[in-house]
């Protein structure tokens, strides 16, 4: 693999940046693979990378119907954190955050992780009690967490309006200092490049149209670029997981919704942390380009259209101005939507499906980006050994029958 370094940068600068190599090959699909991963977003590419690196399974194809990272990986608000309430969630998201912390060095690709701190605001006494409870739960699980009172919140984020006359006054906030943002596209590109280097075939513009299933056991996939035999097949298709699972005759407890985000025009640095608020419902950070990046809740109706309704954005802007009145003159530049697959308990499904050799990593809903490295890591283990990784075991599909739900609705402090 071509190593990126200060020397390679200097060398290419002298050649006017004409000779940078391609990050990954673009091979024709082979007739058969040990593992076929359906979905070339961050989670699918990370799964392929860890399959090759940790389990020695490099005869892997990642099939992507569009282009790499063109789905939710390239559409999220890039927030990375692990301050979840329940033990199972804290464990898997903290596992991911620890991988994030070494990811740029591991992939030799700058994913621009910026641990600038994430504030989750509390606006009423109920919020305060829930937030402090979550701080304690996080600390018991080894996740860094602090409770800040109003003055400390103002000191940490001076531009925030904390005046007691605000309609929803800021009574305090939780702070995870190790949380922050990362460059979303770079995560897909970095994993793709590293997986490709280990022999994984990344095949774009290749849509899966069906599965070959013989006596309850998957044996291959049908695609727009021909049939491909496979020992194991992993579905990692985010909003389209239900559609793919239905091709294999499996019903999933998922509903697909649009989740919208938008950015403002670029301005000078004004916000050096991430601010999230559940009660007024917006989350915002400032990108390195200077744009404010914002998101909030899903559109309530089911959709696959990658766009939502304007009132959702209007509500988001109202929330933003409630917290930051000084942003009122900012113009918004772009808005877009991604399709998120939401579980009834707002936790993911990672594990085996009722068809032998078929696996699912989905249901990450509105908060999958932050989990990308951890999700791929535990899912690769689950596929390679045909048994769930200990951190993935609680997220098995059968929890909806057993009743052992991991109810992160609200418990996660904000709609992720």
């Amino acid at each position, binding site marked *: 693999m071509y190593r990126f370094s200060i020397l390679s940068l200097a060398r290419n600068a002298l050649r006017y940046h004409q000779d940078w190599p391609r990050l990954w090959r673009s091979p024709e699909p082979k007739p058969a693979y040990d593992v076929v991963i359906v979905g070339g977003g961050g989670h699918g590419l990370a799964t392929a990378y860890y399959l090759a690196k940790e389990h020695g399974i490099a005869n892997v194809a990642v099939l992507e119907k569009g282009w790499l990272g063109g789905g939710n990986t390239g559409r999220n608000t890039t927030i990375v954190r692990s301050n979840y309430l329940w033990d199972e969630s804290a464990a898997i998201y903290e596992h991911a955050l620890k991988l994030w912390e070494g990811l740029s060095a591991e992939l030799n690709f700058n994913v621009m992780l910026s641990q600038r701190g994430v504030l989750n605001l509390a606006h009423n006494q109920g919020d305060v009690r829930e937030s402090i409870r979550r701080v304690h739960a996080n600390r018991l699980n080894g996740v860094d967490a602090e409770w800040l009172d109003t003055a400390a919140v103002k000191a940490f984020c001076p531009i925030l309006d904390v005046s007691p006359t605000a309609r929803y006054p800021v009574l305090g906030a939780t702070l995870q200092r190790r949380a922050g943002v990362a460059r979303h596209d770079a995560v897909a590109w970095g994993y793709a490049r590293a997986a490709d280097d280990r022999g994984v075939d990344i095949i774009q513009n290749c849509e899966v149209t069906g599965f070959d299933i013989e006596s309850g056991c998957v044996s291959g996939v049908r695609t727009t670029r021909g049939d491909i035999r496979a020992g194991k097949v992993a579905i990692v298709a985010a909003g*389209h997981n*239900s*559609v793919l699972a*239905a091709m294999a005759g499996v*019903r*999933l*407890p*998922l*509903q*697909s919704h649009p989740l919208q985000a938008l950015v403002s025009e670029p301005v000078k640095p004004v916000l050096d942390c991430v601010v999230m608020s559940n009660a007024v419902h917006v989350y915002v950070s400032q990108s390195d380009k200077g744009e404010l990046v914002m998101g909030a809740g899903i559109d*309530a*109706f*089911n*959709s*696959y*259209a990658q766009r939502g*309704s*304007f*009132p959702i954005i209007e509500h988001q802007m109202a929330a933003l101005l409630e917290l930051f009145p000084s942003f009122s003159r900012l113009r918004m530049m772009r808005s877009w939507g991604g399709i998120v*697959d939401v579980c*009834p308990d707002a936790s993911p499904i990672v594990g085996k499906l009722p068809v032998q050799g078929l696996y699912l990593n989905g249901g990450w809903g509105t908060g999958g980006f932050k989990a990308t490295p951890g999700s791929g890591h535990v899912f690769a283990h689950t596929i390679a050994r045909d048994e769930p990784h200990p951190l993935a075991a609680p997220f098995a599909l059968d929890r*909806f*029958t*057993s*009743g052992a739900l991991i109810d992160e609705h609200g418990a996660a402090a904000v709609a992720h």
Partner: protein
Amino acid sequence: MLLIACPYCGPRDEVEFHYGGQAHVARPTNAEALSDAEWADYLFLRDNPKGPFRERWVHTAGCRRWFNMLRDTATHRIIAIYKVGEPPP
């Protein structure tokens, strides 16, 4: 952005409505006799098609009555709206 023709009030803006998920999901009458898997099926499993979908809406800021809609989830096109109790198109 949807313009929804409430069967009682006529066309109104989407913000006047609330969404109720998949329509025509009947609560089992023999709940105590169901297995865990059958109960989970009723409780948690809903269709999630890419294409026409029968769903419930309520006109919260209007007549506050529930009705059904057939809508394409890939295009947001509203194909049909019909009252509760009427046969689905």
